[in-house]
Every structure is written in structure tokens, then in C-alpha cells.
């Protein structure tokens, strides 16, 4: 075996490799098309049917996508609405029904007979009462049909006690209080029965009666628009992160 043969063999291996690779690269389908017109037409029909089917599938899938999208949108909207309702509830813009107590403020008629003048309820007394019932677990409060919210003002204007601008001079006054649940309402009722407020009211010739109705009581929504003077929405930073 000479060197000549070895180099020839080596070169031959390389050539074979190259030819094989080139063959594979250039290989084209050598199957001849021998179909006649009718066969071609049939095949075309088949392909068209397939195309139609695929198109239908695509359309149904797209419809599904659209459906999902709308569903998602709706769900987002629903969440927003729920949040809005929740916030409205917290802010006092919606009617609330629940377990609670009704406190009635009446003048002491016996004192009237003795010649004492009819006095109206002073704002201090009502504030005191509100503080007390808030301390005892009240959640929603209305005084004489006016909802008490965070920004409610109770003050004396022209010798007349007013709540958010509505007079409270008409006695008896009805204070409705809703607690978190039945148990809390029961607790509130018991505490109010032994409350010091009764004595404070009695000094002003007023009497408070605490009632615990069996049925649920309803507190109306805040009627006026809440005016926000000193609050501004936080401007979101760039990129939407707030």
C-alpha cells in the first residue's frame, strides 16, 4: 500500500462526502405528476374543502377569543363596580339595612308641666351621643333621617342645632344605629341602656329611649353631594405605577 493510494483514498473519501451532501442539498422531488384534469379537479376540490374547514375553525377560534376578551372586560368592570359600591357604602352614599338599635330623644314632659321651657338638643349633646355609640361599635348612623358621614357637621346656627344644614329642633328625634351584626347590635343595645348619656340628656330636660327592634332597620343614604375641598387625587407617575 503506497502513499499514493493512501492520499487517493483520502481524497476520494472527501469527494464522496461532498457529492453526497450536494446530492442531498439539491435533491428534488422526482415523482412525476400523472394526474389528469378530473383528478386534478377532485384534488383541488378536496383542498378547497380543507381550506374552508380550516377557515371555519379559525373563525370559531377568533370568536372564542373575542368572547373571552369581552368576558374579561366585563369581569374587570364588575370588580370596579363592586369596588365603587363598597366605597359608596363606606362613604355613606348608599342605603344600608341591618341589625341595630333606635334611640329616641324626647322632651321630659313632667318638667314641661313644672314650667320648664322646651329646649332643643344642643350640638354638644348629640356629638357626645355619637361618640359614645361609635365607641360601642356603631357602623352606620342617621339622625332624624339624615345620614351621619365622616364630614357631617353638627353645630348651632342662629340658636338652632343643625346637622349638615338641616334643623334638629323638632322633637322627638330618632337616631338609628346599625351595628356590624346581630351580636354587635345586642351589645350596643345593652351598653346604651346603661350609658351615661341618658343622665347628660336628662340635665337638658331630655330623655333617651333605646329600642331594639326585631326586624332590620334601614338607614338612608347621604342626600347631598360630598364636597371635597382639601383633597386632590394623586397623580400617577410615568409608566402607570402610582
Amino acid at each position, binding site marked *: 500500500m503506497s502513499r499514493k493510494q*493512501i*492520499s487517493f483514498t483520502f*481524497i476520494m473519501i*472527501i*469527494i*464522496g462526502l*461532498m457529492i453526497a451532501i450536494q446530492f442531498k*442539498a439539491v435533491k428534488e422531488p422526482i415523482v412525476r405528476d400523472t394526474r389528469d384534469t378530473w383528478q386534478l379537479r377532485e384534488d383541488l376540490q378536496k383542498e378547497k374543502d380543507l381550506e374552508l374547514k380550516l377557515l371555519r375553525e379559525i373563525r370559531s377560534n377568533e370568536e372564542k377569543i373575542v368572547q373571552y376578551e369581552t368576558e374579561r372586560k366585563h369581569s374587570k368592570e364588575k370588580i370596579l363596580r363592586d369596588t365603587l359600591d363598597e366605597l359608596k357604602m363606606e362613604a355613606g352614599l348608599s342605603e344600608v339595612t341591618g341589625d341595630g338599635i333606635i334611640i329616641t330623644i324626647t322632651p321630659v314632659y313632667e318638667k314641661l308641666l313644672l314650667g320648664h321651657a322646651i329646649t332643643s338638643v344642643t350640638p354638644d349633646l348629640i356629638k357626645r351621643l355619637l361618640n359614645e355609640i361609635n365607641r360601642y361599635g356603631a357602623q352606620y348612623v342617621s339622625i332624624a333621617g339624615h345620614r351621619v358621614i365622616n364630614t357631617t357637621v353638627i353645630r348651632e346656627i342662629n340658636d338652632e342645632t343643625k346637622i349638615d344644614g338641616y334643623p334638629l329642633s323638632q322633637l322627638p328625634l330618632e337616631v338609628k344605629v346599625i351595628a356590624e351584626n346581630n351580636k354587635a347590635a345586642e351589645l350596643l343595645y345593652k351598653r346604651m341602656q346603661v350609658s351615661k348619656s341618658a343622665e347628660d340628656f336628662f340635665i337638658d330636660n331630655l330623655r333617651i329611649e333605646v329600642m331594639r327592634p326585631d326586624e332590620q332597620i334601614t338607614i338612608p343614604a347621604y342626600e347631598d353631594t360630598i364636597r371635597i375641598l382639601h383633597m386632590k387625587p394623586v397623580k400617577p407617575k410615568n409608566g402607570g405605577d402610582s
Partner: protein
Amino acid sequence: MWLPVLGLIIGLFFGFMTDIKIPEEYSNYLSIAVLAALDTLFGGIRAHLQDIYDEKVFVSGFFFNIILAAGLAFLGVHLGVDLYLAAVFAFGVRLFQNIAVIRRILLSKWTSKREKIEKIDI
């Protein structure tokens, strides 16, 4: 004599069995390279038959021709001129010439052999 043929078969076998694939756009270069390789191969066979075979010339010519042909094709693609046609033409012509020479040599060898046999017979 049979070893180079065996080499060719081995090369083909490996080429087809392994999954080496070259991209479509490079198949031009490979075809030129194959042509150059074949040209060198037949040149080598002719030189062997004429007894002027030089191993260094053969092996270096093989690789150099391949690289030159591929380079020429590459240059042609980038210049926008079909330069690889020049390589195809040159190699093709030389291939035919070489094969013609090989045929003649083999033919003359064969005829001289027959004459010898006839002389012996007589």
C-alpha cells in the same frame, strides 16, 4: 487500485448516513467545490498513468482548487457577476481533456497488450 474506490464508497456512505445539511444558498459553492475536486482527481489519475504523478502537487492542488473555486463563486456573488461560471467552464474543459487523455492512454495500453498476446500466440 480498489482502495480509492472503497474510499469513495465510504465517503458517500457517511455523507448520506450522517445528517449534515448545508443551506440552500451555499449549495452553489459546494457544487463548484465538487467540480474542482473531480478535476483534480482526474488530473491525478492522468498523471499517475503518465508516470508524472507528484503527491505534493496532487494534494495541494486538490485543496487549493476547491478553495479557489469557492472563493471565485463567493466573489462573483458579491460582485454581481456570475464568476462561478468561469470556474465551471475551466474545470469542465479540463475534466473533458483529462478524461480524454486517460481514455487514450488506457486504449493504447490495451491495444499494445493485445498485440503482445497475438505475437505470443503466433
